[in-house]
């Protein structure tokens, strides 16, 4: 795993110097991260890199998990969908399951942090255990238009935290506590984003039977309705009439997402009639995902809702042209026609896809601009800096803080 000094050639010595300077101000504080899964999805991915780097900076960051069975995660998946605005029938039985598991976690999870950093709704009830320490709720979900009943239920817990953090201004809610805007990030040195040799890339393409003479359209994401894999197939099918290309849908499922298997089955059925559609199950194979992204002619992220959409940043970092929905945190990463193309529908996605396949120079320029934008704003070093500032803000209510 890369150490801090290895980031210097990418972001510059002074950025790392600032992080070292800043991290000294958190001396003596324990930062306790808590979420529900150690693998799968963006939250676990960020924590897997963030915690070791914070520790290298001398910040005592730690990471704990709550426990939850199948029923609990089925309920929290419903919460997730409802917070994204999708109608879900959430019964009193569901609420009871959520609260019973939460109570067990309150009893079992040892809270020792000076700052307790809770990620997403699954562990939200742990706030009932708060003492004199500081608590932050980090929401990674697009809650710009949540189903009101579930937001009202969760809000009762949110207001007991000291601060909340959202990934986009659109997600902020009327709350009596402080709210901060912090975008997630990618790690340029992780297996998913580091440079790869041509041999490695070719090996991956060969392994999955992907041909080199057809441009590849790629969407990398969990098999989740909100990522709209069926919409991607539809857009590809509209383009396929004019451009001979291949579609790759690559992704896994997370342990806290039981719905994923159903969606995967639907995708497989829809893809069965076209041999140029490749559905690849690649749970946590980051090098292979990296190789696919580097090989793609166009990367898509046609989500219906999106907390942030780290796959967009990953693709842009590799200078790939991207077609993505204008939802959630995606417009923060893509300025339309400058660092990618934004779409609002299957037809819009198909049109943008065709444009990029037929205009490789334009596509290449979008990719180059995209990389510069990601380098300036969405790398893990910026994210670490903002988390340290967030922790410090708990002790400083003023606008200008002299440290």
């Amino acid at each position: 795993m890369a150490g801090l000094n290895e980031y210097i050639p990418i972001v510059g010595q002074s950025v790392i110097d600032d992080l070292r300077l800043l991290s000294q101000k958190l001396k003596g504080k324990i930062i306790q991260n808590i979420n529900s899964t150690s693998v799968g999805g963006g939250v676990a991915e960020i924590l897997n890199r963030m915690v070791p780097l914070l520790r290298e900076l001398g910040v005592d960051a730690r990471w704990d998990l709550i426990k939850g069975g199948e029923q609990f995660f089925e309920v929290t998946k419903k919460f997730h969908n409802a917070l994204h605005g999708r109608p879900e029938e959430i019964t009193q039985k569901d609420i009871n399951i959520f609260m019973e598991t939460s109570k067990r976690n309150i009893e079992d999870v040892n809270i020792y942090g000076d700052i307790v950093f809770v990620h997403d709704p699954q562990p939200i009830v742990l706030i009932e255990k708060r003492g004199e320490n500081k608590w932050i709720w980090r929401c990674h979900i697009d809650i710009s238009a949540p189903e009101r009943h579930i937001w009202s239920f969760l809000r009762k817990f949110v207001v007991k935290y000291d601060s909340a953090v959202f990934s986009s201004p659109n997600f902020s809610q009327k709350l009596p506590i402080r709210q901060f805007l912090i975008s997630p990030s990618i790690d340029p040195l992780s297996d998913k984003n580091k440079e790869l040799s041509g041999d490695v890339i070719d090996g991956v393409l060969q392994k999955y039977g992907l041909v080199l003479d057809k441009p590849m359209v790629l969407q990398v994401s969990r098999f989740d309705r909100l990522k709209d894999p069926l919409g991607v197939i539809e857009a590809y099918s509209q383009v396929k009439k004019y451009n001979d290309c291949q579609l790759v849908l690559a992704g896994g499922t997370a342990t806290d997402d039981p719905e994923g298997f159903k969606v995967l089955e639907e995708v497989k059925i829809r893809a069965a009639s076209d041999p140029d559609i490749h559905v690849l199950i690649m749970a946590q194979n980051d090098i292979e995902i990296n190789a696919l992204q580097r090989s793609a002619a166009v990367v898509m992220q046609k989500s219906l809702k999106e907390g942030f959409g780290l796959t967009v940043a990953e693709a842009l970092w590799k200078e790939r042209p991207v077609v993505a929905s204008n939802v959630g945190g995606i417009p923060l990463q893509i300025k339309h026609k400058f660092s990618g193309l934004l779409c609002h529908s299957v037809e819009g996605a198909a049109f943008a896809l065709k444009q990029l396949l037929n205009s490789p120079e334009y596509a290449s320029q979008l990719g180059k601009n995209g990389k510069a934008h990601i380098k300036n704003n969405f790398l893990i070093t910026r994210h670490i800096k903002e988390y340290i500032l967030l922790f410090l803000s708990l002790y400083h209510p003023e606008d200008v803080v002299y440290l």
Partner: protein
Amino acid sequence: MGEEKKVIEPFRFFTRLHLSELTGLKARNIPELAALIRTVPGSCIYHHTHRFLQHHLYLSPEPPNDFAHWVSKVLGDDELGEMLASIDTIRFSTIRGLREKISATIEQYIKKESWVRKRSVHEGDEFHFIRSLSFVLPTNYEAHDIEEFARILEKITIDSIYFHIFEARLRLEKGRNDFSQWIEASSGDKKMADAIARLDPYTYTMEDLRKKLITVVNKGIKV
């Protein structure tokens, strides 16, 4: 040169790191935008007139303040967007003054083009007001003379340059940037201090601003 430029007080470089705080306040149309611009904290006005400097260090198609961007690109009013984009931020030495100018520009436009009152954006496209929190801390760099000052300028972070040029002058209301103040007070080189004070830093990318500062200082040293 020589004794005249001998520096007495060393210059300690500070850096300034920023965090965005969401206010939950949002505008759907021009009248709501105008009303909120009048009442939001000064740290919001500062954020929306300086964010672009942080986010787009390189060539960017975005206009130089968020109000202008939203009015032209989201609300679709190019005329008011252009008026807001061309507000000359460098002319203002306080956030108060800058706020008044932005407010007055919008209000005059509403009087002239009363139809703008009727145009609103869809849900999800509102203008969200954000506050900028600044964390200021000393770096390990200290200049004891102008030559050392020039050398440090080459390696200090963009955030440090940002703090001494933008934040000190406007947000902390020092009237003048820190570099000009120190150069004049310490070395008596008014010409160099004025040359830096005359720069319009809003029209440079941050790295170009660094290069320009180094050029001005080195030119002064050689005289």
